[in-house]
């Protein structure tokens, strides 16, 4: 009895030692990979920051209105954001590779799934970000043009443009992520179509006078309007 217990304990101990002996090198390899990943991520971050500084990306971002969107979202400037992103993407990549070295059952499968899904997540984030920048830029362009032309409802025009672009960006993001793909496309088609139809009916039936005035203004003689303001130069 005693011998059996001792043999079992020896076997367990042997297995434990074997497992530790097998696990420790893997763990060390994982740590080495993570540390190397950290160094590589730092190097890539500084190289990218220097390259983007040379290309004056922040100035382009300012001009496109992207910097303001970033500020509103409490995010750093474009150059800093991209260089930090490359740091984290690189390091997380190395961490996942390191974890896969451990050989834990089930974890490898989850990691490979995550790796497969990562590009779609990045593309989705990119689509949302571009959508925000484009919506902001175009809605402001429309607002300024409408105000300076004396349009009666500039904010409605501006918000309509912003709304349509956001709807488009969100539906594209959902489609990219594969979340309720059919529902997203159908919802976009219904919302967009209904909005346009509603606007057309409201403008054509509800605002006949306004429609006539607008057409007269855009298609009529502009000379009379020009004479009402002094020549600036």
């Amino acid at each position, binding site marked *: 009895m005693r011998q059996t217990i001792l043999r079992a304990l020896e076997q367990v101990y042997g297995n434990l030692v074997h497992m530790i002996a097998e696990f420790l090198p893997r763990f060390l390899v994982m740590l080495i990979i993570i540390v190397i990943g950290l160094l590589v991520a730092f190097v890539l971050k500084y190289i990218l920051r220097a390259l983007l500084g040379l290309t004056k990306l922040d100035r382009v971002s300012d001009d496109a209105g992207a910097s303001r969107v970033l500020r509103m979202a409490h995010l750093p400037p474009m150059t800093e954001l991209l260089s930090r992103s490359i740091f984290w993407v690189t390091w997380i990549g190395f961490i996942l590779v390191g974890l896969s070295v451990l050989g834990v059952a089930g974890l490898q499968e989850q990691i490979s799934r995550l790796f497969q899904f990562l590009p779609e997540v990045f593309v989705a984030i990119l689509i949302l970000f571009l959508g925000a920048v484009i919506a902001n830029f175009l809605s402001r362009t429309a*607002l300024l043009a409408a105000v*300076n032309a004396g349009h009666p409802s500039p904010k409605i025009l501006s918000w309509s443009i912003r709304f349509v672009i956001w709807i488009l960006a969100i539906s594209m993001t959902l489609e990219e992520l594969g979340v309720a793909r059919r529902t997203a496309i159908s919802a976009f088609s219904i919302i967009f179509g209904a909005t346009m139809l509603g606007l057309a009916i409201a403008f054509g039936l509800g605002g006949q006078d306004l429609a006539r005035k607008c057409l007269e203004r855009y298609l009529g003689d502009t000379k009379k309007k020009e004479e009402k*303001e002094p020549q600036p130069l």
Partner: protein
Amino acid sequence: MAEDVFLSDDLLRQLMSVGEVDLLVGMSSLHAANTVSHALDEIEESFQRNFVRQRVVIVNVGGGDNDEDSARAKGHDNLAEKGVRVPGITSLRTSHRVAANVPGSPSPGIALRTILAAADLLRARACAVVSPAASNLTPDSVANLLRPVYREKFDFVAPLYTRNKYQGLLARNLLYPMSRALFGWGIRELFSEEWAFSGRLAALCLNQDVWHEEAIQARPEAWMAISAMASDFRCCQAFLGEKSPVTKGLGRDIVEVLRQTVGTLFWCLETRQSLWLDSGRSQSVPTFGPAHELTSDPTDLDRHRIFEMFRSGVTELEPILSSILDPETHSEIKSIVSLEEGKFRFKSGLWVRTLYDFAASYHHAVINRDHLVQALAPLYRGMTYSFLAEHSDSSPAEMETASETLCGEFELQKPYLMERWKAKVEVKL
């Protein structure tokens, strides 16, 4: 040389056959088919009357071989070469004419670059740029532009005009006082279609790497004047007579004019920071002929509409203006928006601070720069309304006094701009 790259073989051939010249007059004949013949006659006559012994050339920049205007200018027979003389006048030199055809529709920047390159190659001592569409183009006005450069050794000549007291308000209330306060030279017509310059200023400007810039493409003349100031070249003004009214095109569209002129002025502030951040008080510029003159002809202006566009613009653009203006300036503007039309006045101090806020925000690029300049339009309309109401019965002398006061306000508040210019951008959510 740089100009060899963009000048066509045909143009180089023409310029080589001309040789060296003393005087060069350049113009862009694009969209001026009806007036180009008249302009060429006036320039030729000016040469025959005023510059009998000088070697002269007219460079006409047109829009390619298919351009009707340049074809007409090219086909217009040279009076001097044919021996046709203005009665009682004898020129001792042959007057040359060069047609520079640029592919597409040449912008003012491309046209000027071509003229500068031609002036540089021909070693011209005095050059002038004129507009064939201007109805005030006469032999005397051409001579008045060229004479200070050729005879008095000035490097840049800006025009001066007689004009209606309600016209040119952008120049009177913004471009002139602001450029005078910041750059230190009181040039009234910084943006004009007629000006003159020396050969050395042409060479200096030609060699600068700015020709791809949007500001230079649209209105290069102010940049040229500021380049002359920056290099301590001699600048002056010459009286040319009555200002031609802008009857067509974008010259009457306030937003487009703001983009071209204020956008260029802000761009010059950005690129010439060392010049104006260190410059002291403004100095007067020598003037040839009578000073700036004003007439009081009746005009058809809808003041109520101007005021309404100011009021609605400030209200609708509130989020944009809040990111451009200092909070105190913005709140003052919002408070005057609520005033009744009859009591409304845009005080000069507030106007100056508004413009300096716009200039600083342009520098910090708080929003897209083109959008920023467009957002100035409602405020400019507010100032225009205030000016029209305040000076409905003012004499030219009173208006001149008001203009001087405004210039003084711009100079007084220059430290405010410098402070905002150098400040770090605040994050506004």
